[in-house]
């Protein structure tokens, strides 16, 4: 068995971090391939049930990243996200989520190198923490928060 490879899910906004990650690509900066990006219009769109769901789904670490304060394409979405995050952190701590696995950052459309650094740093940190099994088990006992209505 080779070294443990963590699964990282990133929730990013379309205008800053998604574009920043595009710039990482255009600049051909290499980073760890463990991350899967979910594109949303704004960090304000991030329902924190998504984060619980991601952990329930077997993610070992989460990245939430959007525009720097003041730069939000929608004026204030990132402020909502930040405020919600401050509250939600405590709740997550209370329900037993390991906060070292949740990373909140600002990456602008010009910060291609910062995105690569962020991913590598989170992957390294989560790799040392090992697979995250405790939370998904508990989560699955209670079911998913949203029912999917369309059949495959």
């Amino acid at each position, binding site marked *: 068995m080779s070294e443990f*490879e963590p*699964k990282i*899910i990133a929730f990013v906004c*379309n*205008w*800053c971090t*998604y*574009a920043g*990650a*595009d710039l*990482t*690509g*255009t600049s*051909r*900066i*290499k*980073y760890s*391939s463990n991350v*899967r*990006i*979910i*594109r*949303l*219009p*704004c960090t*304000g*769109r*991030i*329902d*924190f049930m*998504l984060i619980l*769901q*991601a952990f329930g*789904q077997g*993610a070992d670490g989460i990245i939430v990243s959007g525009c720097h304060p*003041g*730069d*939000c*394409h*929608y*004026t*204030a*979405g990132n402020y*909502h996200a930040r405020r*919600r995050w401050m509250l939600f952190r405590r709740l997550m701590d209370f329900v037993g989520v390991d906060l070292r696995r949740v990373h909140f950052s600002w990456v*602008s*459309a*010009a*910060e291609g190198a910062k995105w*690569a650094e962020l991913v590598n740093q989170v992957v390294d940190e989560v790799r040392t923490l090992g697979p995250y099994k405790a939370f998904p088990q508990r989560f699955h006992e209670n079911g*998913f*928060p*949203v029912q*999917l*209505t*369309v*059949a*495959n």
Partner: protein
Amino acid sequence: MARIGVFICHCGENIGSTVDCAAVAKAAGELPGVVHSVDYKYMCSDPGQSMIKDAIRTQKLTGVVVGACSPRMHEPTFRRACNEAGLNPFLCEMANLREHCSWVHEKLPDTTAKAIDLVRILVEKVKRNKPLSSIKVPVTKRALVLGGGIAGIQAALDIAGAGHEVVLVERSPSIGGHMAQLSETFPTLDCSQCILTPRMVEVAQHPNITLYTYSELESLEGFIGNFKATIRKRARGVDEKLCTGCGVCTQKCPNKKIPSEFNEHLGTRPAIYVPFPQAVPNKPVIDRDRCTYYSKGKCQVCAKMCPTKAIRYDQEDELITIDIGAVVAATGFTIKGTDFFPEYGYGQYPNVITGLQFERLASASGPTLGVIRRPSDNEIPENVVFIACAGSRDSAKRLSYCSKICCMYTAKHAMLYKHKVHEGRAHVFYMDIRAGGKMYDEFVRRAIEEDQVNYIRGRVSRVFERNGKMIVKGVDTLLNGQSIEIEADLVVLATAMTAQPDAEATAQRMKISYDADHFLSEAHPKLRPVEMNTAGIFVAGACQAPKDIPETVAQASAAASKVVGLFSRSELAREPVVATVNRTAPPLFSTCVGCFLCETACPYQAIERDDIRGRDGQLIRQVAKVNQGVCQGCGTCVALCRSKAIDLQGFTNEQVFAELLAV
């Protein structure tokens, strides 16, 4: 039952050399709901798009996933192709296999595995996409041009010339910008003011242009075609309608020793002043920080002398709100200040000046009337050293970029000096000579060969004073790094061009992106060079990156043509990524409980209250409703909604959770 088609693009070698595209297509073909999965060298090409269209028709696809470049690049292309084949364009999604996968990872099995994951995520999303139709919004055919330098002037004249109204806002008392300060322009040595001032006058006289000088953009609300701009018209202290521009006030003002901004502090101006004689508008401004009346409550000489009684000491700033359809940002640049060059002694020795100051010395309308005199004693300098790349291309000073214009203007300065002081000697320290452009290299050769300017390839380590001379210490790298000293009478620094000090705040006010150096970021460096990522906002001139006058003018005309293109339509189709509140059968009517958290969260005031009434007209309950013309689709309300009654089209809860389940 979903019938999804998956199309994997090799992008030539860009994706194909790192990701096993055939394996991705094969794996995608096995996903539930996928009925068609192929790979091809260039999906965006005509044959590639035809493959998609044919498959939509023959396979009766209900959704399409294109695994290719970033959706920010080609999503419109593929959505258009789907539309042409009769599939609703919003049933097409892109998996970003290039920028987010092949370009950032090595050629390893994990990379192909990631590509398969990315495709699977989007397949699960697209299964839940709903056909949407674009939202039509009206267009206000009036443009706001921000900045009255040559970029803003050109853009305003072009838009106005096409028959549309333009509001031109300039921060300083006159339009003209940096170009008005220049003596002559490279490579033709045209007199800058001679070619600029007729344009300035044209702006002032154009019936379609409303000019606000000494004014700033206070706020910008709204979206493409429907902005609302608030302009702060600062108090000039002069009634512009009464003032005839006779100039008596500026002549009589007793407080004349104020360093002139226009002359780069080499000359002086009074407290009530017109920045330069050809200023447009030719109406003075009272500098309230320096006027004796404001500090001591006495004087009022200008008011007593004014023949039309136009002086208004109690005038206040005025806020003007205007409906705007498009914005051209042409806010210009600044140059690095005194504290940036301690090693060159700028700010410490009066005879170390910037290139812009040299322009004023060389200008016929400048403080020395075009005679090159050094600031310390007004003597004509016999030895002048020009230092190129002062600040630019210096990562130690956190300015890694090239300021682009300095090679050319340094050659011009040296040439102008030699033309004016025949027996003088001009030396240029340079790193490289970058003279790409029509007749540019010829111009530099002319300076070296005809005008005998001494070009020294090497950098300067220090400039200091010894016996009344400026000693320039540097190396000549073409002489094996031999160190050299030149005794100079005047040192001219080709200082780095930088973004305006408040560029960040200006960008934030307009909600547009900017880069690490605070220059505005265009939507695409090659294919959308004058558009911002925020629709309806365009860019021109040096606020985007250092550039010279011809480039600035070209970009300004390009931005103007984009604006005119936008104004050629009376309504716009906007992406239907907007929030909706669900409606259900009575007695519930909606799962909205009427808490209106969304109302407080919405940055656009797009949430309205909808009264649900019975047949007798009696109010049953009040639920939220989204004004889709105003909603911009950030989704903040969706994340807040406790009863999941509000959802964002294109990024619904169902879609996003399905994406997550597929990771």
